[in-house]
């Protein structure tokens, strides 16, 4: 059991949790993840560790409520518990002083890219952060990123805040400006990561993405998280989660991530129906 120290929404459906996990806090490195479970019937959900505090023995995770389980997680509040938190899993990010490094986060990927941006900065890189969101309300971690980045660019798809356009447009501008760019990290929805990979490929800029496949155990035991990288099958949980963006088969990743779409929809509907029913019952009793 791991206690939730604090929980707050960063944007609609995106919640930040600080959880008691002293062992993981002491050990984790940028790029690694944990698997959490909220109750006896719960799924095992992999989540990147966004931050940690060794002294306080806590880690930070950021959750976007999409399916039944992630929504249930986002109903948790401070003083509640996660039933299981296991980690740190996966290989840490490969960090070195590349020179000029760009860390790109899309949506909740911003949170996942955050620790790597910190590590890149600490390694001495001139660190540029591009933080993309659909609109102003979904922009997260702006203050935190300001403290880390040498240059911070916020982009919104609808132009409601910051730069009007996609992260790749901003990236292309930076490339076109003739600056030497040595390393790009992109974390976010698959279409975004694919677009970043396509943008940097012609210039041969070393680019890394963090993959988010379906997982069960997270230790290499089941092979459910397999992806194709450089025409070879890899297990993302133990071989990754970060890979050379120019070698990832994004098409396959997209398709495999749809495996349980039907079941997930059914589970969510079932869950929402029950909530409605419970709500109606409360209303009836109260009246």
């Amino acid at each position, binding site marked *: 059991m791991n206690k939730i120290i604090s929980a707050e929404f960063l944007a609609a459906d995106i919640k930040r949790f600080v959880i008691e996990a002293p*062992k*993981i806090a002491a*050990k984790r490195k940028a790029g690694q993840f944990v698997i959490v*479970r909220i109750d006896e*019937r*719960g*799924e*095992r959900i992999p989540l990147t560790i966004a931050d940690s505090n060794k002294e306080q023995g806590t880690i930070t995770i950021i959750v976007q409520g999409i399916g*039944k*389980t992630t929504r249930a997680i986002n109903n948790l509040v401070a003083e509640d518990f996660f*039933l*299981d*938190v*296991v*980690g*740190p*899993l996966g290989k840490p990010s490969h960090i070195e002083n590349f020179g000029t490094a760009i860390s790109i986060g899309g949506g909740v990927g911003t949170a996942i890219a955050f620790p790597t941006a910190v590590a890149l900065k600490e390694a001495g890189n001139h660190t540029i952060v591009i933080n993309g969101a659909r609109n102003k309300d979904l922009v997260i971690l702006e203050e935190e990123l300001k403290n880390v980045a040498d240059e911070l660019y916020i982009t919104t798809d609808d132009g409601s805040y910051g730069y009007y356009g996609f992260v790749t447009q901003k990236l292309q501008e930076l490339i076109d400006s003739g600056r030497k760019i040595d390393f790009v990290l992109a974390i976010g929805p698959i279409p975004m990561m694919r677009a970043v990979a396509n943008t940097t490929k012609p210039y041969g800029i070393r680019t890394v993405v963090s993959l988010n496949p379906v997982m*069960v*155990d997270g*230790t*290499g*035991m*089941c*092979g*459910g998280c*397999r*992806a*194709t990288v450089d025409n070879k*099958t890899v*297990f993302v949980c*133990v071989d990754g989660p970060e890979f050379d963006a120019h070698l990832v088969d994004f098409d*396959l990743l997209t*398709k*495999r991530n*749809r*495996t*349980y779409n*039907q*079941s*997930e929809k*059914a*589970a969510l509907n*079932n869950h929402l129906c029950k909530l409605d029913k419970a709500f109606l019952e409360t209303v009836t009793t109260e009246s």
Partner: protein
Amino acid sequence: MPPLTKKERMQIPRQPMPEQEPLARSRNFLEVNLGFTEELAKMEALRCLQCPKPVCVDGCPVGVKIRDFIQLVGEGDFLGAAAKIKEDNALPAVCGRVCPQEEQCEAKCVVGVKHDPVAIGRLERFVSDYEREKVGIRTPYVKPKTGKKVAIVGSGPAGLSCAGDLIQLGHDVTVFEALHEIGGVLIYGIPEFRLPKNIVKAEVDALRNLGVEFQTNAVIGFTDTIDELFESGYHAVFIAVGAGLPYFMSIPGENFNGVYSANEFLTRVNLMKAYKFPEYDTPVFDCKNKNVAVFGGGNTAMDAVRTAKRLGAKNAYIMYRRSEKEMPARLEEIHHAKQEGVEFVFLTNPLEFLGDEAGWLHGVKLQKMELGEPDTSGRRRPVPIPNSESITDLDMAVVAIGNGSNPIIQKTTPDLSYNKRGNIIVNEETMKTSKTGVFAGGDIVSGGATVILAMGAGRTAAKAIDSFLTTETW
């Protein structure tokens, strides 16, 4: 009544195991075998000749005193029999269910030379169930504390049997498990209908009552390294992490949706209880009225195909590249699978999985094989028959061809010796590794094997660990 003569004993037929009726059980996850009654158990015990030199014991990797416990069964002292088994076996209710007795103790049974061997496994199962159900599992004698601490990495059969022996010898034992439940393959791999999880839990609880500590969610290598275990006060470490890295066949189409490793399919169903979806949150491929094929011929393949059948598969196939005779699965599992309507397709090898635009599996290209000369395993090698390709419709495929060794310990403990397959190299008499204080056993050493062989390795290691801790010499 005078005692039975040898001849009279041998004339008693082997008592059949009461089972759930095949059609009914192929639709539920309740245990297939129902267990002996007291009468059946006593009758079966009478078949034992009480040999002066019980060779059956030589066939048991953990050395259960088979003759002695069966004598107690014959006398109706079922609790005494249970205690006798537990002198050597920490998980008797598990072993009574999943051991391949026909290749071990029962293969050596003297009665079996002319007749059917004594049903040792069924008797073991009966007495351990009897004890658990009538009085609860009783704790054996535990020696005074030695003050030594042992860390066991992995809570599968090897880890649990080692823990059971070491705690009785007076050492403090902590078992570290990466998953959220204790039991390893007994929990995630072997299905409920063959090994009910409440039985595993009861035997684990019995170890807990003896003082064994269990830590779930601990991935040794990541959460703590082996060296950090020593730094935190453990005097010896036993690595029993299992095989745990599923092999695929490296044929085209293996990453289509609907192609699973046996580990993933079984873990979803057993550990995560996907057969109760959506009551439980983890889904698995909906097998209802679908065509499912499992590739492989071992116990895991049988578990997977029988699980698919229970999830409603219209056609559930075992596809195996050799013939029935070479199948490594237990005879009982093959027999049960056939009774439940599983179709066996022998001498058939997949060449390619076929899928649609959206990435879903819809078929498999197969090749017929014939048996050639024996290979290194002693079994006749399957050889492709030219121009024998065909295509079969398939909605789900499970690859059950075994496991390689999990890389986490190797990556984080480079100062152990490994062979080129990633298995830890040990002295087989002591399970000592190349690193002082570190022992290893089970599938991480042997490659994929059986529950009882892993338990045997756990016992061997426990003996050597005890001697290392007492003498303080490596």
